């Protein structure tokens, strides 16, 4: 197990090196000169070339890359062209909100998705089943901003239970987390349902019944641990992409998370910030995957890491 984790972490370094090449080249492939961007189009040629020298843009490409990657792995993601803040600091400031939001919404998705999916499978072809399938379809297909506005209208405006926007502590994240969680819960419910339907047909479920176990026990103790295996993969993927920020929901609820930082940086062509964020997200995504794989070996004893 430990050897496996070390191996995975080493390969993670390889992945990040690949990512670093891509984000380094990104600056040089995208049209527009950063120096001109910073100084504006009326700057004198002298000022621009001086700025290029400060940014190191006059050096050969490979030298620029070595410096870039050296800084990256030393934890220096550069400095924002606009705010003058360290990119790393910007991300670290914004990240807690995004992480809390991601964790909260994945918990909501997991609880509701797995619960409803399991009930639907057990009650296959009944009204309950159809209702779950329909609701989950609604959850998947309803646009995030619409659900968000709907929730704000009821719970924040009419009932005044939550702040309408902004961050005033963890409870401000509940409505955005429900918004994100609903769509995910829909997908999780459908996946749990089909996975559970498959599991219910298995011989070992009949064995459990022949032993004299009650339905509740058969489903919970024998069915769910098997049915949940593919669901965990999906939860992991959802969590990974949520950690990269949820742009629409963060915008609607005026949350200062990673998603809104990305939007600001892209609209201003703040290259160091964009690069730093892509690198950071790649790191987070890879770590999430590793954790999901480790959870996998916990729930499925047939998977072994040596």
């Amino acid at each position, binding site marked *: 197990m430990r050897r496996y984790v070390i191996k995975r972490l080493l390969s993670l370094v390889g992945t990040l090196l690949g990512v670093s090449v891509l984000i380094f080249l990104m600056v040089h492939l995208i049209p527009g000169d950063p120096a001109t961007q910073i100084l504006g189009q009326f700057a004198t040629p002298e000022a621009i070339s001086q700025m290029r020298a400060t940014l190191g843009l006059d050096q050969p490409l490979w030298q620029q890359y070595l410096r870039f990657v050296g800084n990256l792995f030393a934890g220096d993601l550069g400095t924002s062209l606009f705010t003058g803040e360290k990119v790393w600091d910007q991300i670290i400031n914004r990240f807690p909100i995004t992480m809390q939001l991601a964790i909260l919404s994945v918990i909501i998705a997991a609880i509701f998705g797995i619960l409803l999916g399991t009930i639907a499978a057990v009650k296959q072809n009944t009204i309950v089943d159809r209702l779950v399938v329909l609701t989950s379809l609604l959850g998947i297909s309803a646009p995030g901003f619409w659900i968000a506005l709907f929730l704000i209208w009821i719970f924040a405006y009419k009932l005044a239970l939550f702040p309408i926007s902004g961050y005033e502590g963890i409870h401000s994240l509940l409505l955005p987390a429900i918004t994100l969680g609903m769509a995910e819960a829909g997908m999780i419910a459908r996946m749990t349902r089909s996975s559970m339907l498959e599991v219910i047909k298995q*011989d070992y479920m009949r064995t459990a019944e022949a032993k*004299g*176990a009650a339905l509740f026990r058969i489903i919970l103790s024998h069915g769910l*641990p098997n049915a949940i295996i593919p669901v965990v993969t999906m939860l992991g993927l959802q969590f990974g992409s949520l950690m990269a920020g949820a742009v629409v929901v963060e915008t609607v609820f005026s949350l200062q998370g990673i998603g809104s930082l990305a939007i600001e940086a892209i609209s201003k062509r703040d290259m160091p910030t964009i690069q730093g964020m892509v690198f950071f997200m790649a790191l987070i995504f890879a770590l999430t995957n590793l954790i999901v794989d480790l959870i996998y070996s916990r729930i499925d*004893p047939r998977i072994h890491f040596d």
Partner: protein
Amino acid sequence: MKEVLLEVKDLRLQFKTDKGELPALQGISFQLKKGETVALVGESGCGKSVTSLAIMGLLSRANAQMEGSIRFRDILLNQLSTGELRNIRGKDIAMIFQEPMTSLNPVHTIGRQLEEVYQLHTDLSKKERQAKAIEMLKKVGVPRAEDIMREYPHQLSGGMKQRVMIAMAMACNPDLLIADEPTTALDVTIQAQILELMNDLKENDHTSLLLITHDLGVVAEMADRVLVMYYGEIVEEADVVSLFSHPKHPYTIGLLRCIPDLDEEEKLRLDPIEGSVPLLGEVTQGCAFRFRCSQAEERCYQEKPPLMATGTGTQAVRCWLYENKEMAV
């Protein structure tokens, strides 16, 4: 005369499907006495497994409509609620299935699955359950029982898994063990070991055995009495010696001809029964075997023969050929 443990009377079963109701069992009656081994024999699709599942109450009540009665000791199983049936399942009546490979839960340890039986049917403490489970594994000949308790099904061979299944079935010392093709999925050498194990356990614990198989070799080895099934009906019933020495029903005779005989020199080829069991619902009148029977007469197409006594012991046969024959014997 030994005490009757299980009595199935006129058991009829219909499956509700989109294409209407399909008759899976058409009036099965038989008795199983204490300590006796009865074999249910026939090709795939003849209703053997369905009979066993009906006794266990493992058929979905929504899809299967049942008539007739199944009496176990003095309990009418078919009138019990699901909850009452659960108390009997796994404790008084236990079952072993055909596929040991898929019959154990892949995500639970052997120990957990075995202990569950005690958890469901006894008040034993966690420690006692564990001790019982280890004892049971040793009893069914599983080596390194303590280690196996912590292992998962995929770490065991097919034969070992079937031993674990037997341990699970015999855990509460059931009065009746139903074994549905217990050795079909196993290697021949392992088959013999498993059969021997089942025989030993049965003798020691005075368990009755309902053995479902299509393998006449297994029948000869294990059974006291044999019920030959065809198309959801019992077509011949006999003690094992009579069945092998003078089979009556053309189907039974056909089945016996299918066994390769190494001693007989002329018989170089196998002699299979042509055709296959009709689909459910296909036969509405007459004898269901007539399509494959070389001795079928006009009458076989019109009238369904009843199960008739043959005069030789308890042997009975469902075939017009034997009408009035009992007079002659």
